[in-house]
């Protein structure tokens, strides 16, 4: 009996939270398709005009291209740098390892707004602030450690015996990498790539601090338009938000085929490694 009340409370709260969330998200979607909407539960007429309005007025084609370019560049570099580092951290033990892990951990622990301002100051000083390169360099700061920490457990699952057997059978280091490690790491690389992709597309703080006129990502452009409010019809801003939502959710749907939702957040036992 007591157990059942407990479960009921959980369901009611979670249902409330989810309804709330659905309300928030669907309000944006409904508004994006509304012709005019004021003070009524639903708009009297629907239209798709705001999408073409947003597409031309916010130069969304260019913004989307830049967002995808930045996101793919970040995924590629984060994997290229993070992969070998995760391999060594999973396979070797050395005295400086806890210090190294802490150093990789800090950019994930400290909020982006806190280190974003000194980082932006530095990058502007070297003339890359406000450019696409600047955004890529800044967003990589938390993404490289993220890639390392997602790849680590995947490496730990691959038995060292496989590498030993391969080398006993005469495989060189390079062959072990191509013929043994890389094929076994495909799920790890996919998971890492997708999670870094989602996090880069939705990264606001760093992209915001570093982006200039021609280097705004979709979410930064969205922020400026919400903030500017009143200048543009709210329906067109919501149309833009819907395009952003579709982009994030499509990557997320693919990502969730590989990972459990609880793996999408920080792992609390990470510091114990």
């Amino acid at each position: 009996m007591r157990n059942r009340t407990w479960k009921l409370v959980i369901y009611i709260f979670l249902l409330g939270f989810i309804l709330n969330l659905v309300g928030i998200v669907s309000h944006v979607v409904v508004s994006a398709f509304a012709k005019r909407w004021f003070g009524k539960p639903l708009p009297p007429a629907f239209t798709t005009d705001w999408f073409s309005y947003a597409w031309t007025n916010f130069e969304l084609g260019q913004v989307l291209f830049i967002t995808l370019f930045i996101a793919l560049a970040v995924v590629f570099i984060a994997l290229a740098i993070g992969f070998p580092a995760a391999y060594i951290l999973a396979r070797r033990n050395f005295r400086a390892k806890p210090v190294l892990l802490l150093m990789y951990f800090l950019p994930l622990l400290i909020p982006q707004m806190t280190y974003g301002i000194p980082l932006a100051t530095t990058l502007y000083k070297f003339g890359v602030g406000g450019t696409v390169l600047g955004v890529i360099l800044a967003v990589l700061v938390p993404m490289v450690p993220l890639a390392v920490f997602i790849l680590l457990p995947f490496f730990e699952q691959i038995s060292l015996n496989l590498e030993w057997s391969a080398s006993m059978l005469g495989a060189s280091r390079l062959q072990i990498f191509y013929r043994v490690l890389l094929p076994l790491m495909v799920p790890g690389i996919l998971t890492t790539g997708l999670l870094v992709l989602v996090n880069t597309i939705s990264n606001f703080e760093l992209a915001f601090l570093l982006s200039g006129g021609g280097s705004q990502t979709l979410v930064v452009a969205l922020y400026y338009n919400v903030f500017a409010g009143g200048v543009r019809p709210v329906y067109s801003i919501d149309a833009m938000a819907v395009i952003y939502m579709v982009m994030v959710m499509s990557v997320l749907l693919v990502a969730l085929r590989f990972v459990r939702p609880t793996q999408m957040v920080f792992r609390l036992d990470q510091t114990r490694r």
Partner: protein
Amino acid sequence: MALARTDSRSEVDLLAIVCLLPSLLYVIVMFVYPFLYGVYASLRPLKGDAWSIKNYVAFFTDPYQYTTIKTTFALALPNSVVVVLLALFFAYGMRRGIWMERTITTILVLPISLGVIFLSEGILGFYGTNGWLNQMLLGADIIKEPLELTHNFIGVILSLFMQNFPFCFLMLLGYISGIDPSLEHSARMLGAGPWTIFRRVMLPLIAPGLLIAFALVFVMSFAVFPSAVMVGQPAGSTRTISIAAYQQAFELYDMSYASAVAVIMGLCQLGALIVIILVRRRMTIATTMGVGKR
């Protein structure tokens, strides 16, 4: 996992260095160096070229600036306490799995992935004076005047909650469901009731993770920026310390002062982390002592 650890020889050879160097250099050049440069820049104000703590003095003597610390605490502390307690309650209740768990957790990932900008835009529409919530409440005659839920303190709390609760909940759910269920079974077999099991068996096991979760949520909400601007009142009741830092950097172009504000923000977060670590250490001693006494 144990297999991979068999190679416990301490070896740092060329391969290890070559593999670690790129990422290590990246973190040092792009994270450690800017941090140190920020501290340095904050001590070298624009006009004078000598070392000076002018920026810090200016911050702490100007009420418009130093009250941002109080404002930020007032937002971050209640939010983190409520988020962590609720997340603990629900994650604990769901530790042995419930019906539709996968669907529920999948839906909860959404606000984390969509990000605060999208959520804030939705909150403006849903909770606004003409939003669905107010229309519903007015229509049902529960309230006479529409509730003011956005462009103020409540709006920021709402936005922080929508963002932080799923994050904290999923974190704790992963942590709590990883605890060996046989411990709980043994306690129940020895006659412990649900409350005793929670209080004497599970809570001491959860406490370390719970404190880290609290630290993360607190530090995250202490740096709140976009939602304080979008659904808050950035010129007044929700002028947080990150807004102060941003204004100095990108509206007044005083990078030195901005760095000083960023350093103060970092120190506040560090202070909170140290307090939490101290509490955690104390708690661990307390639990081991508790075990010893029995």
